[in-house]
């Protein structure tokens, strides 16, 4: 026998609004079906109800009754977000979830025994998770959708109808809970039927004979028999949180304040499914018409609200909205973070989740083009650089790996994969006078390839020549007489592209002690330095 749970939120439009604007808690609030003074009130807060505000009044009438009344039009986006959040709460327990138009959510409890010890625990868990999402929900559990829904509406926070006791539970309840139409209610009232038990007591055949198929269906429902199946909600491909504003926001700080709420709610919904955010889309409705669409591809999927907000802040500060903002919608594209199989023979790298969050933080801090793994550019241009996304890959197995080929000690014999023979004491790598070891060195020398510190972008130089030879170099961070010189090496390329280069490179040792790589641009005849050997 199936067991169905129902999540129901009383005064759903009001709860959806309070979820978006929590500062409205505890004050008189009315939701209207429109924006003008004659729009009817569709629901109101208990404080407004105490002041005499009732559904059906116009906004002007409600304001006349309560001077401090806050009137808000029904926000479709806030309602959608609240409905989906409630469905996400159910989806965190069961894969079979139905979401109705009025915000009521049903879920199949089959298999929940693995998560909860009892149905009471399940209901408590659902209530707690809904509260965490900013929704005060009531939960009912029964053998059918009808019983579960009635239990949720009439039973307080949590109501569980045990298997087989549906008829006894429904009997004292008013017959209007079965949702008959107005004509049928009038007919039943004329028969003197007020409670569900009164209808069940009548012979089913006689009721069907008088009321037709509608009556037969009503009797079945009165007995707790509901064969309507769950119409499962498809898996969401994006999660949306939105809010509308009464006034335009011109500055970024208050905009970020609102964005933080939306992002926090989005992240908490993603967490219900164990998702991380792969892409963030922000849609800003601008004052005076128009929209500002932004799509932020996150370098490493993350579920941290602070990281996403930092990315948003960086993006907004770089490109502020053209006009005031009167509506915000944040969409998160989810991705499942898969666990990684660790290598048995290699050191563990960072946890994938921690690494993803770290990469996202670094991107927010420095920019997406300034974080990654360096890559050899597919260009012969000496100062070309490339950067790729940082992905942790498994290292080669120890039995097939290469030894470090950039650093080796003199007495070490590099492994076969290195390809660089180990230098001997008698054959130091320097061909010239520099092969002499410093007399102050006390241990075996370290041999490595010389590294270049790049100046990015290259710095302009003044170069003075004497008798056709470079004699003196002066620049912003260097300067001195040329002590030694190697070159020139002429490089040219990209002549087929828009930015060709033709350069004469020199390696120069200056009297300031530095060894620099300088070049003369053949097109502009300018001297530049693009690196120092260090």
């Amino acid at each position, binding site marked *: 026998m199936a067991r169905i749970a129902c999540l129901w939120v009383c005064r759903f439009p009001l709860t959806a609004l309070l979820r978006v604007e929590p500062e409205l808690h505890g004050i008189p609030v009315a939701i209207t079906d429109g924006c003008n003074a004659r729009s009817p009130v569709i629901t109101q807060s208990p404080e407004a109800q105490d002041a005499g505000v009732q559904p059906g009044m116009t906004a002007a009438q409600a304001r006349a009754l309560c001077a401090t009344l806050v009137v808000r039009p029904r926000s479709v986006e806030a309602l959608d977000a609240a409905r989906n959040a409630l469905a996400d709460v159910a989806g965190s327990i069961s894969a079979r979830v139905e979401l109705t138009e009025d915000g009521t959510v049903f879920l199949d409890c089959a298999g929940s025994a693995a998560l909860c010890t009892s149905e009471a625990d399940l209901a408590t868990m659902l209530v707690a998770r809904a509260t965490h999402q900013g929704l005060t929900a009531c939960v009912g559990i029964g053998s059918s959708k009808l019983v579960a829904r009635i239990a949720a509406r009439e039973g307080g926070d949590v109501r569980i109808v045990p298997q087989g006791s549906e008829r006894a539970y429904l009997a004292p309840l008013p017959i209007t809970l079965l949702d008959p139409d107005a004509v049928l209610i009038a007919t039943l009232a004329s028969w003197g039927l007020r409670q569900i038990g009164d209808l069940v007591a009548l012979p089913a055949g006689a009721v069907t004979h008088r009321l037709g198929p509608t009556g037969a269906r009503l009797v079945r429902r009165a007995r707790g028999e509901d064969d309507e199946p769950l119409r499962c909600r498809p898996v969401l491909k994006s999660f949306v949180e939105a809010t509308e504003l009464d006034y335009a926001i011109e500055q970024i700080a208050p905009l970020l304040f609102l964005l933080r709420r939306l992002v926090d709610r989005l992240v908490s919904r993603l967490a219900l499914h164990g998702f991380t955010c792969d892409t963030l889309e922000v849609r800003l409705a601008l004052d005076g018409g128009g929209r500002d669409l932004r799509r932020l591809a996150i370098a490493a999927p993350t579920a941290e609200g602070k990281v996403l907000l930092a990315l948003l802040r960086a993006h907004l500060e770089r490109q502020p909205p053209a006009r005031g903002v009167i509506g915000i919608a944040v969409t998160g594209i989810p991705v499942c973070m898969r666990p990684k199989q660790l290598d048995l023979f290699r050191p*563990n*790298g*960072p*946890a994938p989740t921690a*690494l993803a*969050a*770290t990469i996202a933080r*670094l991107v927010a*801090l*420095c*920019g997406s083009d*300034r*974080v*990654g*793994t360096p890559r*050899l*550019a597919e260009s012969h241009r000496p100062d070309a*650089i490339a*950067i790729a996304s940082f992905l*942790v890959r498994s*290292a*080669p197995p*120890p039995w097939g*790996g290469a030894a*470090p*080929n*950039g*650093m080796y000690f003199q007495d070490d014999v590099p492994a076969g994969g290195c390809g660089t023979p180990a230098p001997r004491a008698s054959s130091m*790598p*320097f*061909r*010239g006078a*520099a*092969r002499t*070891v*410093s007399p*102050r*060195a006390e241990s075996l*020398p*370290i*041999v*490595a*390839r*010389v*590294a*270049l*510190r*790049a*100046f*990015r972008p290259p710095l302009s130089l003044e170069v003075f020549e004497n008798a056709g030879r470079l004699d003196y170099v002066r620049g*912003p961070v260097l300067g001195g007489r040329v002590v*030694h*010189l*190697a*070159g020139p090496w002429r490089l040219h390329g990209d002549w087929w592209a828009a930015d060709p280069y033709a350069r004469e490179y020199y390696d120069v040792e200056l009297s300031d*002690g530095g*060894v620099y790589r300088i070049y003369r641009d053949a097109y502009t005849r300018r001297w530049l330095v693009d690196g*120092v*050997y*260090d």
Partner: protein
Amino acid sequence: MVTEIVGAGSSGRTTLVCALAAAVTSSGDLAAYIDLPDALDPAHASVTGIELRRLLWVRPRDLRSALQAAEHVLDAGGFSLVLVDLDDRRRPRLTVPAGAWVRLARAAARNRSAILVLGACSTAGAEDQDRSSAGTFAALRLETERWRVGFTGSAGPCPLFDGISSTIHLRKNRIGPPGAAAALFATAAA
């Protein structure tokens, strides 16, 4: 543990740092390079033996971002070596707050990582010392001193830059006696 490498320009500091990164990445570990001056040259880094795909390269725009980036990387865990390059000739007067070093040292100890800070020369008097240096927070301080620059055939028609010969001095050592020295040959790529 914070290790600081200082030295004058062209004294082999970057070569030493790259060699250490090459040793770490070649053994399968991950390294991070926080590159404040944007000075890493991927082509030369590859030649020095760094396995580029195991190197996280971060190019912050200012000192504050660099220190924050280093903290983030350390907090992620799993990076055996975090290189923080603070030697920016175009920003010579960098002041690192002492609290930043404390946080970095603690994060490194917590995550079993090593921090290598590459700073400018500190051989001048104490009053002229570069304020970017880790100072008392450094457990090790290495100083590179250029011994000789090699040029072959300087008098001939086709001279070549051979490399740099340096001495690495252990100026400070909290876990042993200071004062040791080693030679470093930085050979130019063929």
